């Protein structure tokens, strides 16, 4: 019965820990490894115009659905203007309004986005477009082209490809030539393509976006063709007929509506500037989580003051050390002094680094032990004797620091980071074992403590593990589950296999 409770509790803890971890990793995008940097692109759209006499209203289409990108934040720089974000027919719109303005005006809309392959467009399936009303002789030309292309294609994708092929033919068909006579810009070309596709009852629209490449002062929105094949939207390069989107293509707006609409202003100009920054992936995930109102962000350790963070990055590794110790003591069967002494020694190793940690620790304990045996002759009472050992340990640490400093070895200074109470206790415990059970047992337990400490240290300083626990502290629940499970481990310890070998040989 109790066994089931233990398994139930362990499973519960592990599931809770792992689900929070999974949510933060997969949904909120917290990175698994340290120093992951993500490119953050800041795209700034500057709108300049000359103000008219009356009130001014500016409508700018802004990114709505951006496949491949996720928005970090957006803002507007516009002195004196009222600013609002709305949903219009063509997607999201930024709207500025002011009662009166004088002279040339410039307002900015700025959006920061980062690449996130998991952001897919969740666009709706459009209805079949009604056949467009087109004047003659264009109607006939369109009909001919549609009929012709239909002959040479099988489905929506191949129809579009074939259409683009014909429209881009260097020696075009007279019908194509007629249709393209009005299309001077790329946007107009894409516009006439959507008209032809609509005649074939294929939902299509223009997408206008910016190719993000490092730092760009004057980025131009480029038109791309988007065709729905009944299942999903496909992107076509209108000039080559290739089905693709450029790398890092930020879709700014869709449809053939004008990007900007300024009421009460004239001489309107819109420019785009792009700036690439590198931000820590954790920071991005934090901001993103905060946007979604996810409480995970509120409880993140990264929100603590930096100094407190530093303390916790160490403290959070203690459970890992404890887990290592549980394994080594209960499953391997290594003998060690005290319950948590090895973990605390390992903690000290963090500061001194492993080699010097082991050397200094051994020197201190050896010196302390000899002093302890001298004190034994004085027949002091227990507590005064322990205190005397403690004081001697402090003096020894001081001497080691001074000597190593004289010798120009700065590592010796870090001896001061050893928890001296732990060392004093180790010395006392070791000397008692030494007297009672002999030097062998004392050495064995001392060595065992050192082995456990080193093993715990190795795990406690693994940078990826440290990052993982610090970013996902909920994983401590999993560690807890493992420790709880280990608490019900009734199998043999590894060293018992050799201890009881005489019984197995029978």
């Amino acid at each position, binding site marked *: 019965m109790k066994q089931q409770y233990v398994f139930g509790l362990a499973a519960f803890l592990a599931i809770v820990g792992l689900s929070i971890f999974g949510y933060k990793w997969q949904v909120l995008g917290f990175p698994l490894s340290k120093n992951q940097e993500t490119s953050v692109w800041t795209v700034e759209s500057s709108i300049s115009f000359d103000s008219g006499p009356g009130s001014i209203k500016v409508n700018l289409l802004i990114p709505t659905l951006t496949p491949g990108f996720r928005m970090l934040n957006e803002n507007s720089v516009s002195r004196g203007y009222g600013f609002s974000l709305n949903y219009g027919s063509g997607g999201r719109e930024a709207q500025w309004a002011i009662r009166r303005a004088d002279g040339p005006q410039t307002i900015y809309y700025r959006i920061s986005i980062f690449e996130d392959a998991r952001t897919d467009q969740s666009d709706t399936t459009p209805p079949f477009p009604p056949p467009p009303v087109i004047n003659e002789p264009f109607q006939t030309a369109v009909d001919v082209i549609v009929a012709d292309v239909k002959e040479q294609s099988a489905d929506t994708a191949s129809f579009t490809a074939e259409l683009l092929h014909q429209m881009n033919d260097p020696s075009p068909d007279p019908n194509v030539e007629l249709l393209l006579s009005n299309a001077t810009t790329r946007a107009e070309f894409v516009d006439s393509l959507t008209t032809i596709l609509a005649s074939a009852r294929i939902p299509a629209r223009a997408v206008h976006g910016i190719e993000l490449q490092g730092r760009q002062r004057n980025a131009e929105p480029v038109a791309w063709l988007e065709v729905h094949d009944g299942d999903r939207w496909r992107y076509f390069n209108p000039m080559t007929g290739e089905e693709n989107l450029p790398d890092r293509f930020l879709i700014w707006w869709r449809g053939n509506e004008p990007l900007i609409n300024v009421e009460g202003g004239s001489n309107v100009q819109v420019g785009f500037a792009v700036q690439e920054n590198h931000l820590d992936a954790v920071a991005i995930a934090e901001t993103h989580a905060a946007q979604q109102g996810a409480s995970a962000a509120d409880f993140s350790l990264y929100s603590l003051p930096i100094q407190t963070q530093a303390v916790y990055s160490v403290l959070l590794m203690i459970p890992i050390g404890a887990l290592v110790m549980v394994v080594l003591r*209960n499953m391997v*069967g290594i003998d060690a002094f005290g319950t948590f002494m090895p973990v605390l020694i390992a903690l000290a190793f963090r500061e001194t680094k492993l080699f010097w940690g082991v050397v200094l620790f051994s020197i201190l304990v050896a010196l302390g032990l000899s002093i302890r045996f001298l004190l034994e002759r004085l*027949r002091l*009472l*227990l*507590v005064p004797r322990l205190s005397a050992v403690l004081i001697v340990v402090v003096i020894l640490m001081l001497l080691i620091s001074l000597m190593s400093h004289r010798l120009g070895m700065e590592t010796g200074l870090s001896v001061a980071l050893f928890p001296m109470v732990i060392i004093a206790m180790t010395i006392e415990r070791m000397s*008692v074992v030494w007297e*009672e*059970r*002999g030097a062998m*047992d004392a050495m064995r337990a001392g060595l065992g403590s050192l082995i456990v400490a080193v093993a715990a240290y190795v795990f406690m300083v693994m940078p990826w593990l440290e990052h993982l626990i610090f970013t996902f502290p909920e994983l401590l629940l999993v560690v807890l589950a493992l420790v709880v499970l280990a*608490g*019900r*481990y*009734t*199998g*043999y*310890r590894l060293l*018992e*296999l*050799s*201890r*009881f*070998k*005489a*019984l*197995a*040989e*029978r």
Partner: protein
Amino acid sequence: MIATAQQLREAGVLGLNERNTDFIMRLNPRRLYPRVDDKVLTKELALDAGMAVPELYGIVSNQGEAGDFGTIVADHDSFVIKPAQGSGGDGILVVTGRSQRKRNAFRLSNGVLISAAEIAHHISNIVGGQYSLSGNRDKALIEYCVRFDPVFAEVSYQGVPDIRVIVYRGYPAMAMVRLPTRASDGKANLHQGAVGAGVDMSSGETLTGVLDNDVVDEHPDTGALVAGLLIPQWDFILQSAARGYEVTDLGYLGVDMVIDRDLGPLILEMNARPGLNIQIANCTGLATRIARIDEIYSPDADPVERAHVARREFPAERQTSIHF
């Protein structure tokens, strides 16, 4: 060479983890521990139950009284000083006699002469808690020093050999004789280097011995064969051990007894966490016997009956291969 877990499982070997979780934690409630961890209390309980224990000469419970131990032992030339809450035999001082010249110099079991001041220091260490399980203040017991029965004289190096019986739910399950060696400094604890010899539960005859996890046939210091010694009053020893269950209520219990040449078997102490080396000494796994006791367990059986059941159920499997 190491054994596989599978082999040990088949041999019915009980591991430390299994002992701790399945037996000690389940059968030995923490609140009962003082009954065995405090040797003063153990002695009282055993006396109340009419069992024979070494006579208590006195208790030192304050640092200030440490120097006055001389008055407690004024009438005794030999005595044992031990911490009331010690573990694993730590802190036990066996005084076998006094110096012929000076009455305040004492002869230890290993022959070393020690001054009264040194003994007083040892007592104050005990009282200060150096040997107690929790490190708390403790009491020092001064009691009768057992004059052990000559049956083990050939296979002991100084010190007092004792008999450890594991009692599971009141039934004696396994026993061994612990023989002091030079390495163990006259102490009868296996982890200090004493030899443990398995005992045939049905006859009370010793089997092979174990030293540091290895099977041995001879005592390392005297060279005498460990096996084949008949323990006197075996019936009484098993009954006393079984009675330890009534005294302590501990379901997994180690009872340590000594045989005094004048007083017969005496209960020395009891242990709520008896070690597992007894399995090596007996070349038998404890788990098998525990499973058997669970099968035949009867809540109404009295200690005499349970001792009888143990003698009937657990005869040693003779191993000629190790005897010769």
